[in-house]
């Protein structure tokens, strides 16, 4: 709560447009990481479809605006519904056939690679490798000002902050509900959960679909803030970047992946490195986190501050 208030007031202190821009990106990627953790950290399914949900929605939002003439927000809703539809198809195929662990990762990866290949090669609609420049800006209603263009970093700052806050709220509600208990049952011992009457298929699909829909909303917002879309949104590297954010931040708390998103988004701008060195540092962070700090930043700090359980 305190952190939320601090983030809401931060722009009063930080006037740098550059710093605010980095924060907007962190919030939007934070939405992506937090929603991915619903599938990966809480339900235990290593999905490689998350970047695809993000990228497909970015394209779909734009296409809905340019082809159907909808507003940005209607387009975003349609894109999220499209992603829901795709998630149900992909999820049904994977979970009906009980694909687990590596096989689930590989098949979801195959589906997202196919989505990427289609986008890459459907030149007439997606403009292929070059991607699309987005010049339009979404419009929002502000009290006292009426409907205005969503322009300028400060406005984006609040829109993306609200997006992140809503994501956290939804995920927090879910994991602390009866449904979250079913997610935990699936992660820890799905066979036992099944004999206790939990419909494993249904709740895997629920986590997968909700997670992907949040990723879809993040994708639409991200592309319009960035001002462009390209097929790289759906790449394997993007999927892995999400996994890295979650691992670095931690899997054990709803907000923890946001820490990872913040660090990995900020780092390249704070420490200036060439692209090559950046790749090396990025890979090293991933390895270091897994081998030395498997609980992530959040988990490690929590372990330090928590009193040992049996201390007098």
């Amino acid at each position: 709560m305190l952190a939320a208030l601090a983030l809401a007031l931060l722009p009063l202190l930080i006037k740098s447009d550059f710093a605010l821009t980095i924060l907007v990106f962190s919030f939007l990627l934070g939405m992506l990481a937090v929603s991915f953790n619903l599938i990966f950290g809480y339900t235990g399914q290593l999905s490689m479809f998350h970047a695809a949900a993000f990228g497909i929605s970015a394209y779909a939002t734009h296409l809905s605006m340019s082809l159907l003439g909808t507003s940005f927000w209607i387009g975003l809703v349609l894109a999220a519904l499209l992603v829901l539809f795709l998630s149900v198809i992909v999820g049904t195929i994977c979970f009906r056939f009980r694909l687990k662990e590596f096989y689930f990762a590989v098949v979801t990866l195959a589906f997202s690679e196919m989505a990427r290949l289609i986008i890459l090669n459907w030149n007439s609609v997606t403009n292929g490798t070059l991607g699309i420049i987005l010049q339009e800006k979404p419009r929002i209603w502000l009290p006292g000002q009426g409907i205005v263009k969503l322009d300028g970093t400060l406005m984006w700052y609040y829109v993306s902050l609200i997006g992140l806050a809503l994501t956290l709220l939804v995920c927090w509600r879910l994991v602390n509900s009866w449904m979250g208990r079913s997610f935990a049952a699936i992660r820890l011992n799905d066979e036992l959960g099944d004999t206790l009457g939990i419909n494993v298929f249904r709740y895997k699909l629920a986590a997968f679909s909700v997670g992907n829909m949040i990723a879809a909303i993040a994708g639409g917002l991200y592309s319009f803030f960035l001002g462009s879309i390209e097929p790289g949104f759906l790449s394997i590297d993007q999927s892995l970047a999400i996994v890295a954010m979650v691992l670095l931040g931690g899997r054990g708390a709803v907000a923890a992946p946001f820490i990872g998103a913040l660090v990995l988004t900020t780092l390249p701008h704070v420490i200036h490195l060439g692209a090559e060195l950046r790749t090396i540092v990025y890979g090293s962070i991933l390895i270091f986190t897994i081998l030395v700090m498997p609980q992530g930043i959040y988990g490690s700090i929590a372990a330090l501050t928590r009193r040992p359980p049996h201390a007098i």
Partner: protein
Amino acid sequence: MLFEISGLTKRFDGLTAVSDVSFSIAQGDIVGIFGPNGSGKTTLLSLIAGMLTPSTGRIVWKGKEIQGHKPHDIAAAGVVKTFQNPQLFSELTVFEHLMIAGHLMLKRRLGWRRIATLFNTDTGQAGGDLEARAREVLRLCRLEGSRDQTAGVLSYGEEKMLGVAMALMCEPQLLLLDEPASGLGQSEIDSLEIVLRDLRAHGMTLCIIDHKVGFLGKLADRAISLHHGAKIAEGTPAEVLSNEHVIAAYLGR
């Protein structure tokens, strides 16, 4: 009849684990299924609970055929199974286990209204019922003392009892117990017996398998003996235990 199986057979590539088994269970009975190791007892329970699909045969629960249904559907219909080697959610506490196992309770109480509880903070009466039931089950299974311990630190006896406790959270009408007494010390077996008698007093129907004759002999109303996957005797425990085929099977002749 509450529960009836007929001609149940399960073959795994060439091996017939359960062979043409038929029997029925009446409301409120405790039925014991004996048999040496490898006689097909665990396979039989797995078939009933839906973890395996029978090759042929029928399983009828309250007049409906349930063979080949999914485990969660069978559990929802009121037939719940425990595991011989306790299956747990390793990093959670005992109480959290029971809350997860309360899934069916909430489902029965709320139906699709469960979705609505995701949006407002209160699960209302049903949430309160769930916690009350969990406390009741803890007391019944003598696990109150380990309520907030994680599953990892429990003793083997407590682990097995937690398995029974989770099954009880599902409000079963027929409880299938896979060797509940194996690996337990005598005092643990005694308290298990008290718990099971308690359950029967509450009107629950039990089907227990075990290869130890003594424990089941005292508890069961009726007994069935399996050997090489086939039923070789049925009757009161005393009758079955004095049956010459059963004695021969146990002595390995």
